[in-house]
């Protein structure tokens, strides 16, 4: 059973990769399993300068989900290049660098810095982080701004650029079309939905940042819907994510139109989830009559409605 799939800049052994921010720079997980098993790795967001991020508490648990407000904590792109990429270069796994910023210039600078390395095979343009006061998400809410930042980053990037879409928008298709028009090589979606939990004892939001990004199985139906919708409106490939916990979930995303998938929150529940899903995937594909990963991509769009009992 072939799990291989090819995306711009990425030749993947399998369609499974950890999602940005949920896997650090791979070191911790490398102690638990061989990273060579992974299709790719999307590393934690990088900004130009190091950022400390938000106050704690930064995470809260919700029904079938979690909220996070890490706030783009990272050591800054130069330190990532110096201290983290050499470690990741030891593995035969394509690295996707998640690029964040508060201004178009910052996105451009960070991308330029990554462009000087050979380890980074693609850029994931994070215009959808809901957890920082300025920068980030406004680019992901407005098609024109998204178009501009994508265009500018494309100008300086030597590797394909995937734009990470925010689900906190009225019209996800319009966002996707705007970044496709700007030359994006692919999309990754979805980032988290903005949410809040209130601590009844403290009588204030539990997260120090008040709001946080909702991820996990709770948001899966929203992710699947958005991917399905976007798949019908653009032709660039999609790396899908949002609540994936099982190989069946992966197939659901492939059917919706994702070309590969990323796994975020599930890593916290089970740090072995990526290799476990990779192992389970062939038999799940087989069970539902698919001969390869590529065979399944987009196949949820083709069949007419049949009754529950006849399926």
């Amino acid at each position, binding site marked *: 059973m072939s799990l291989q799939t090819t995306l711009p800049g990425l030749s993947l052994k399998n369609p499974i990769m950890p999602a940005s*921010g*949920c*896997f*650090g720079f791979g*070191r*911790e*997980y490398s*102690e*638990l399993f061989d990273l060579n098993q992974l299709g790719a790795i999307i590393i*934690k967001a990088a900004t130009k300068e190091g950022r*400390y*991020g938000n106050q*704690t*508490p*930064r*995470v*809260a*648990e919700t*029904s*079938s*989900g*979690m909220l*996070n407000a*890490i706030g783009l*904590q990272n050591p800054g792109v130069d330190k990532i290049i110096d201290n983290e990429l050499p470690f990741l270069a030891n593995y035969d796994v394509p690295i996707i660098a998640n690029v964040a910023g508060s201004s178009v210039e910052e996105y451009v600078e960070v991308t330029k810095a990554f462009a000087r390395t050979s380890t980074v095979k693609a850029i994931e343009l994070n215009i959808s982080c809901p957890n920082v006061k300025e920068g980030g998400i406004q680019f992901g809410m407005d098609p024109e701004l998204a178009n501009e930042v994508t265009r500018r980053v494309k100008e300086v990037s030597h590797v394909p650029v995937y734009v990470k879409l925010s689900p906190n928008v009225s019209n996800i298709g319009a966002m996707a079309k705007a970044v496709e028009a700007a030359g994006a090589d692919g999309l990754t979606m979805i980032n988290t939905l903005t949410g809040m939990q209130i601590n009844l004892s403290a009588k204030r939001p539990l997260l120090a940042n008040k709001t946080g990004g909702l991820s*996990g*199985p709770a948001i899966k139906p929203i992710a699947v819907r958005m991917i399905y919708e976007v798949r019908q409106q653009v032709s660039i490939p999609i790396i899908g994510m949002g609540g994936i*916990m099982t190989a069946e979930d992966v197939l659901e995303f492939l059917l919706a139109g994702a070309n590969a998938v990323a796994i975020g*929150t599930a*890593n*916290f*529940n*089970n*740090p*072995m989830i990526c290799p476990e899903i990779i192992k389970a995937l062939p038999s799940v594909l087989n069970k539902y009559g698919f001969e390869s990963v590529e065979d399944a991509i987009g196949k949820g769009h083709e069949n007419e409605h049949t009754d529950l009992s006849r399926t």
Partner: protein
Amino acid sequence: MINKQMMTIVKKEQIAKDTIEMQICGTSIVSSAEPGQFVHINVGDGNSNLLRRPISIADVNKGEQMITIIFKVIGSGTDQLSRCIVGEELDVLVPCGKGYPIKSLSITKALLIGGGIGVPPLYYLAKQLQEKGVEVTSILGFQTKENVFYQSEFEQFGPCHIVTDDGSYGFKGYVTDLLDKESVEFDYFFSCGPTGMLKAVSKRLENHKGYVSIEQRMGCGIGACYACVVPTCDESNGFKKICKDGPVFRVNEVVL
């Protein structure tokens, strides 16, 4: 080296109000656990309690690869854990974090100060200190009489003062009030408990060497997600991850 393994519940007992002692048995790695380290337990089914729960290692039986944990039922995760029965298996990351670095310290007299569910890790610490020939004095604070546990266990190691907020058992007040009254000699103190207590203790004993173990809400529990960071005191604008660099820190190493 952290390991993910299924550990079997071999004993379960309620030892105080809402407080459960559980013994869980696993494979070899378990015996490397040090006092102050914790286990990160998957208490849910993937839908409820998506995040693992961090619980301190209260004791280790190296021969039988057995760990004791003691936890208080405060929410849905600990409630779920309390419903597990002997014979069931728990999905555990073990051992997590860095414990009290007693191997590298030269101590003769130690003061242990625990508060509530901060008491458990001090038990295995006391045991290890005694093996090293250290004299151990303990001060254990609880809300009220029915929360008190492990008094006789700590008495094995030396003097043990119980303090309750309402005076319903032992000394009435906070652990720091007792420090004002009793004079205890020690070269290092080791503390674990609510942040408020750790702050008060650090201040009261500011001229002493010591270690504190701190809590924070966690995501991954292994150092990858930056959920559990705490700023360092050294003005380098640095930070530590509680789950990986801690939960034990030198007093005044991080901002409480």
